[in-house]
């Protein structure tokens, strides 16, 4: 009896002490972390969408935490403790089979894109291995009043009928679009492992590159342009530059892209667009602004990739021109 008490009781007692110190007390403390500036609780619809997200195990492939590492910069600023004040259950995740979703509401703000992507991920990202979530949609012959059909590209659309999202899909997309980082002025937290993340990393790189290249001899980095385009633009405009009919405009043969005056092109990439008419077609989708995430040199690389691909033949744009456009806009 005494021996057993010493072994089992001792092992249990020590364990309880350690668990209190390493888990329970820190958790009590961390649960009281105040919300960051502008971090708000989810609305009823968004919370319903979060439940759809959890029920279908989205966070087994998608994280919601941005680390203070250079490779995570594409997903936003490093996550701060205050970002998670209203995130219960926590959905930080442990695997990135697919990309991080911390800021997906800002980088993919178009609900149309989200619907097409959920219905068939390969309709917008050909290499994707995400399962389709067609069970979140209905195919109807007649649009019910108040519903809008999702413009699924022809090879992926059902043979007959129109695709409309169910309530679950609407809630899920509302949740995804709510995933936006809030700015924290002067926030770095990088401990020497990353760099400044909230301010646009623009001015220095732009002046450096434009100063080192003599006027008239500017050549853009084609490989970098293609890579940046693939990372930031092709989900909507597609690698072919043809866009998705009725959803996202083509860049191939696009008037603004081929215009000798690049002002509109630069302005659109910097500031985004919403509800524009291109080639006689009105597009309701939202295009996000890239001014906050990409440097002038990077934006110039993307623009020049677009101006020289798919048969487009327009003069390249210098990073200084992007810097000037950025300076002019508020």
């Amino acid at each position, binding site marked *: 009896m005494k021996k057993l008490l010493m072994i089992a009781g001792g092992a249990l007692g020590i364990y309880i002490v*350690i668990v209190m110190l390493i*888990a*329970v007390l820190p958790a009590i403390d*961390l649960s009281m972390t105040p919300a960051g500036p502008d971090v708000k609780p989810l609305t009823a619809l968004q919370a319903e969408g979060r439940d759809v997200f959890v029920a279908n*195990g989205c966070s087994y492939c998608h994280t919601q935490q941005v680390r203070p590492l250079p490779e995570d910069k594409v997903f936003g600023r490093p996550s701060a403790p205050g970002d998670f004040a209203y995130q219960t259950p926590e959905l930080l995740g442990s695997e990135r089979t697919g990309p991080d979703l911390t800021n997906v509401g800002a980088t993919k703000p178009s609900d149309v894109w989200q619907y097409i992507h959920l219905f068939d991920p390969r309709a917008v990202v050909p290499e994707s291995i995400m399962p389709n979530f067609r069970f979140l949609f209905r195919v109807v012959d007649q649009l019910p009043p108040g519903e809008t059909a999702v413009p699924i590209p022809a090879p992926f659309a059902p043979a007959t009928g129109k695709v409309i999202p169910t309530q679950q899909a609407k809630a899920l997309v509302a949740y995804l679009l709510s995933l936006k980082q809030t700015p924290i002025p002067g926030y770095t937290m990088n401990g020497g492992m990353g760099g400044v993340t909230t301010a646009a990393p623009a001015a220095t790189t732009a002046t450096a590159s434009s100063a080192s290249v003599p006027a008239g001899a500017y050549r853009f980095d084609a490989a970098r342009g293609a890579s940046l385009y693939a990372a930031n633009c092709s989900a909507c405009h597609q690698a072919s530059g043809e866009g998705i009919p009725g959803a996202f405009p083509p860049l191939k043969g696009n008037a603004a892209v081929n215009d000798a005056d690049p002002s509109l092109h630069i302005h659109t990439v910097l500031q985004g667009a919403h509800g524009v008419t291109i080639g006689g077609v009105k597009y309701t989708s939202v295009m996000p602004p890239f001014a906050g995430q990409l440097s002038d040199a990077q934006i110039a690389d993307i623009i020049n990739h677009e101006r020289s691909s798919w048969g487009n033949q327009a003069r390249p744009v210098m990073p200084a021109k992007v810097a000037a456009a950025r300076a002019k806009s508020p």
Partner: protein
Amino acid sequence: MHAGNAAHHATTGTEHDRALTSVFAAYTATATIWLVFATAVGLLLAFKFGAPDFWAAKYLTFGRLRPIHTNATFYGWASIGLVGVAYYIAARSCGTRLYSTRLAWIGLALFNIAAIAGTVALDLGYNDGDLEYREWPWPIRLIFLAALLVTAWNLIGTALRRSTEDIYLSNWYTIAGVLWTCVIAIVGVLPWYQHGLGQVAISGFYMHNAVGMWFTPLALGAFYYAIPKILSRPIYSYALGVFAFWTNLLFYPLLGGHHFLFSPLPWWLQTTAIVFSVAMLVPVWGGSANYLLTMRGRYRDMIHSYPLMFIFVAVIGYLFGSTQGTVEAFRSMQAIWHFTNFTVGHSHLTMYGFVTFALWGAIYALLPLATGKTAGRFGLAAHFWMALVGSFIYVISLSIGGTVQGLDWVHGHPFIQSVVDMQPYYVWRGVGGMLMFLSHLVFGWNVWRMTSGQPGNAASPVLGPSAIGEVTA
């Protein structure tokens, strides 16, 4: 006199023997069903990486089946199987009968009810927040906790009625393991201090303690009984085993935070986790050395003993898997491997290469002693080699693939590049997984032969003392 000599074998009457045998056999049989089910789901999941539109309907979608695979492996296969082995070891090494056969049956029913209800709930979309290994809705996790409490009660009761003076080391590990896991289950289920980041701190604690304070001690307890039993010689150093027990207790619970390196968790919590990940080398290397030294001079016997081969692989899996875990915990390594498939490779090296092989070794070594029936040598060989080769392919392909994935991100390629680059490794993972799954079907056949088959398929797993290199009396 060495009270720890596992060869101690008091007969306590045939009726009690029969009761113990049917408890052990029933735990093993239901665990085996869970293994086959969980890995069938795992194989389907592996296939989906190459064919994402295959069976993408609501109840077969990846995100619902994935936690079914992990939870069925954890709580169906490994938990039920290890508890069955723990009961047998408790009764035999204490030279007594089980405290209560009835409680053992109740525990088995509760474990299975929890696992079935959990599986159904997850498939219906009742997932408690995608929090790894505690996805089951909380009422179902309370059923699992009840099963643990019943098991703890029964194991302690058995140790109390022992006929030996000392409590053999195996029982330290199994009894403490069950008690610790009761604490883990309670900490995991209580809701009121788990909001936002607070819940993250518990997630880090929970997922790693569920491994290191549950499966590890029960598997190590099985080692301490099965290895001396097969070789008919005492453990190399009882004191080293005791030392590894207490150091495992002091170091392991503190390392869970390494799942959240670079997260917004406090830096001190992350650094503590790294420090104790390194400290874990002490019990891991000490324990592994103890097992390997017990086998010293007897490696030639391994070709005659598949149970010993399974245990040898498990010891190596423990040594390599845990050491790999330490290396992974460094910030510089995490910067590359975190979030990649390298982690999936690591979890299979440990849960499969260590825990599952240990459980197989213990079942093949001990179940024939209980039932008097053995599996045939062909069945043992087919199981062993398919499982070994399959897990090698699985772990190596995901380790290489995960590294490629991590480097793609470090080099700043568009994210989709890492998805494309993983494709060949996903295929190889599926090949390895297929071999592993086939080996489990053979295991099922072997279990059937050890429980319901004929005696005399193969020799007893006990090798008897060997003349070669034998120094102890």
